[in-house]
């Protein structure tokens, strides 16, 4: 993907500007016009934070129950006794993996989009143009079940089925297994950045749906390395 990919994009754009008037009537061009944007490639988070906040910079609207769960996670972290699941190399899961500062590779195909995270080598499989599965018919998982579709220039991903043991961020923002996430991904800054707007719905822990926004930089040429969480134990 990388440099050639970027070059291909800009070259195509230049070519399109030159040729579109003469090619408008051709089938090829009609197909090209219908294609969604190309978000494939290597990306890296620009705004890393250990504590997720709303787009207005506020603490998410926790309910009483949600506040209690959050306070317990914060306290455990202060005592250097984070929840067991936060320290034994199980996947950070969705959405927390999206907040990792390590590079992210997006593989885009018509049928499926795969998010390949260097961090803990986590894979998110997003099946395109399928309905959100019946929550009773799926097994809960760290990654959740995700389906996607394009709305114009925006990739919309719906995720449900998240395991009780994951949290939203490093500080332990909690969720229940009923949480649903809607992510809206689109290229900004002429394709140099990828914006991800995430909305969380989880009535037991949050009094209203809330939204956060993260931005990734395009990192052509960067290769993902092998992330070895377990190996770190040897350093202790």
């Amino acid at each position, binding site marked *: *993907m990388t440099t050639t990919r970027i070059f291909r994009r800009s070259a195509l754009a230049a070519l399109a500007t030159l040729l579109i008037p003469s090619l408008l009537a051709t089938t090829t061009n009609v197909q090209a016009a219908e294609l969604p944007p190309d978000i494939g490639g290597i990306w890296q988070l620009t705004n890393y934070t250990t504590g997720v906040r709303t787009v207005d910079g506020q603490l998410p609207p926790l309910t009483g129950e949600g506040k209690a769960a959050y306070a317990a996670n914060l306290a455990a972290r202060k005592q250097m006794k984070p929840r067991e699941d936060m320290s034994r190399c199980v996947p950070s899961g969705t959405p927390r993996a999206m907040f990792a500062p390590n590079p992210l590779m997006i593989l885009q195909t018509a049928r499926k989009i795969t998010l390949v995270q260097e961090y803990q080598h986590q894979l998110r499989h997003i099946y395109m143009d399928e309905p959100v599965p019946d929550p009773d018919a799926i097994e809960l998982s760290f990654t959740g079940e995700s389906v996607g579709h394009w709305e114009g220039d925006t990739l919309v991903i719906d995720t449900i089925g998240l395991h009780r043991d994951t949290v939203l961020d490093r500080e332990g923002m909690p969720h229940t297994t009923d949480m649903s996430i809607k992510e809206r991904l689109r290229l900004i800054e002429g394709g140099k950045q990828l914006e991800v707007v995430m909305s969380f719905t989880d009535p037991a822990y949050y009094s209203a749906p809330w939204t956060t926004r993260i931005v990734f930089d395009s990192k052509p040429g960067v290769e993902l390395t092998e992330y070895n969480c377990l190996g770190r134990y040897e350093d202790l």
Partner: protein
Amino acid sequence: MSLMHYPSAPFVRLLQFSSIAGLVVIPVLALAVQEPPQPNDPGLRDRDVNASVPNISGMWQVRGYNRYIKPEDGSLPPWLPWNQQAFEERAAAEAAGTPLYDPTAACFPSGIPRIIAAPYPVEIVQTPDEVVFLYETQHLFRVVHLGKQHPAVIEPSSMGHAVGHWEGDTLVVDSTGFVDTTQIDEQGSKHSAQMRVIERIRKLDNGSLEVEFTIDDPAAFSKPWTAKRVWEWRPDVRFYEYVCEENNRNAPDANGVLRNF
């Protein structure tokens, strides 16, 4: 086969190799809503891949399951004496019911070439510049960089650094930069950090992919040797989440005993 360290998703995968596979696995797969893709479906790979490049994108799974990786001619791996000794000690320990440590039991990555023979699905996604392997096993992945050279200095890893190119209908993958802590296979042959693995991957027909791999490791084997696996096209299969660190066990039987295969 003794596979007690594998979690529950693998339990289901192993059933696929047994006669009752259909009974157990098919209800779970009813999640699939789209029509299953056909081989050569352009929708399975990045749209910018040139149409002339062979299409190996999609879901594959090894045909049969043999945990022992041996030369194609049926001979034993040409171990150096230290490696043969280690292998035989390991076999003896397992036969005595006291198996030795296997790094995957502690959730370390299977590594190359072991994962080529693993009985779990592998999805291949082709982009213009890469062929990416996504594994159900331990949610590992591997990026084969097309038309690139290995860097002068490689940080050693379990999966190695992989570069590749097409020779006609065959994808040739050259991997090096390995740690010496993974095993060649589940049976237990070892290798050194000098190991280089060359894979030649090609479609036998639309339903199968041949992965022929040559192991070149002068510190562990007396000569390079070549083994082979065939992967089958599995449009009916979707990934389960495989989380080794969750410390799942194979389902216990009615007497509470963990199952062996």
